[in-house]
């Protein structure tokens, strides 16, 4: 179990961090996922990847978290919008970093479905087939969703990037 923790607590944390955001809540959720692994270890039949089973658990924990907090996403959208507008780092060496921040905030604004698929494919580096298994949809649908999510993300970034470049 300790080994599993060593191997998976970072990816899990990243996933939950992007999905939910708050640091303390994330840590709790990671704990929760591992606790569920212990409790429901009999449901892991050995068929299929452990990773997908883990993400199933993580998604359940996440949805419980959202239910408890009665919010679908929890970032304050207005606050984020301010951040996007005010984020003016002129120095070019900070530009990429700024871009990253921009994307991070834009991700947060993105609807949950799109955000999830991008996190899983980009940050978790999962194959589309694996994502398809986690989300219980076809691989083709995952690709379409990734495409659309990227489109949406681009829109948000461009919309907020324009004032800065203008």
């Amino acid at each position, binding site marked *: 179990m300790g080994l599993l923790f060593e191997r998976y607590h970072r990816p899990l944390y990243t996933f939950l961090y*992007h999905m939910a955001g708050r640091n303390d809540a994330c840590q709790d959720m*990671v*704990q929760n996922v591992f606790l569920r692994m212990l409790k429901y270890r009999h449901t892991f039949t050995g068929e299929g990847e452990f990773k997908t089973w883990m993400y199933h658990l993580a998604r359940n924990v996440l949805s419980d978290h959202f239910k408890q907090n009665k919010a679908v996403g929890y970032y304050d959208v207005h606050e984020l919008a301010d951040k996007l507008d005010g984020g003016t780092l002129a120095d070019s060496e900070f530009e990429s970093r700024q871009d*990253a921040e921009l994307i991070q905030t834009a991700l947060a604004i993105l609807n949950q479905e799109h955000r999830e698929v991008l996190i899983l494919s980009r*940050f978790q580096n999962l194959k589309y087939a694996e994502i398809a298994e986690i989300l219980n949809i076809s691989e083709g649908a995952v690709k379409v969703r*990734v495409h659309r999510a*990227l489109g949406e993300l681009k829109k948000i970034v461009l919309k907020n990037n324009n004032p800065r470049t203008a």
Partner: protein
Amino acid sequence: MNCEHTREQLADWLKDCLTKTEKSEVELHLIHCLQCQEEFEASRQLWTTMNLVQVSVPGEAMKVQFNTMLNDYKKTSEIEKKRTAPDWIRQVREFLTPQLALQLGFSLLLVGLGWIIGYRMKSPAAPSVAYEQQIDTLAGQVQKMKQMMTLALIDNSSATERIRAVGYSMGAEANERVLEALFSTLNSDSNVNVRLVTLEALTQFAADPLVRTELVKSLAQQDSPMVQIAMADLMVRFQEKRSVKALRELLKKEDLNDMVKNKIEQTIKDLS
């Protein structure tokens, strides 16, 4: 390859998981289609920039928290294991399907029935006690009857009847009245045979010291040689030392048979 088809490949293209031919097809389209080229380029930029997104690293505290959680879980699961009695009952209940329960119940019923039948068949032990008691009562009654017969017939005029009367006393228990009657027969019956039989009957009660004393006393009163010899034999058999005096008295009798005399002398020698 048209734009729509190419855009379908975007996701795979970004992840770089297209085959060589697919990739070259996509790139060929991109050269010709400026719109797609722009979109792909923008997407790729976005995709690369996403890599730069920094995530705060989970602290050491989380690991500590995890270990605490793991230990807590182990403890609670151990406690749960200890408290498995109700759980065990539940499992048994789950295991007992209605059919199995019926079978088990039926077999238990059969075992119970067998036990009851066995118990019932063994219980006539109680009546057998009553039976034995009945037999005891009957035996007692027979004894009494024998004693009564002895007493009734012993005064009969016929010697045969008197022998029968003495015979009745054989195997019967010693009763004061019966003993008294037997001794009076031994001492005063006119028939030698009756006296001999009576002597034989009295030997079975010889364990009683009172009977022995009476026998020694009766020695002096005998005049028949046969009875005297029989009595002398009896004294030797019981090693009755008290009889020596009575035997010496007997020797003094004048009309004593020689054979008896010899026998008595021999007896005295054996006893002393």
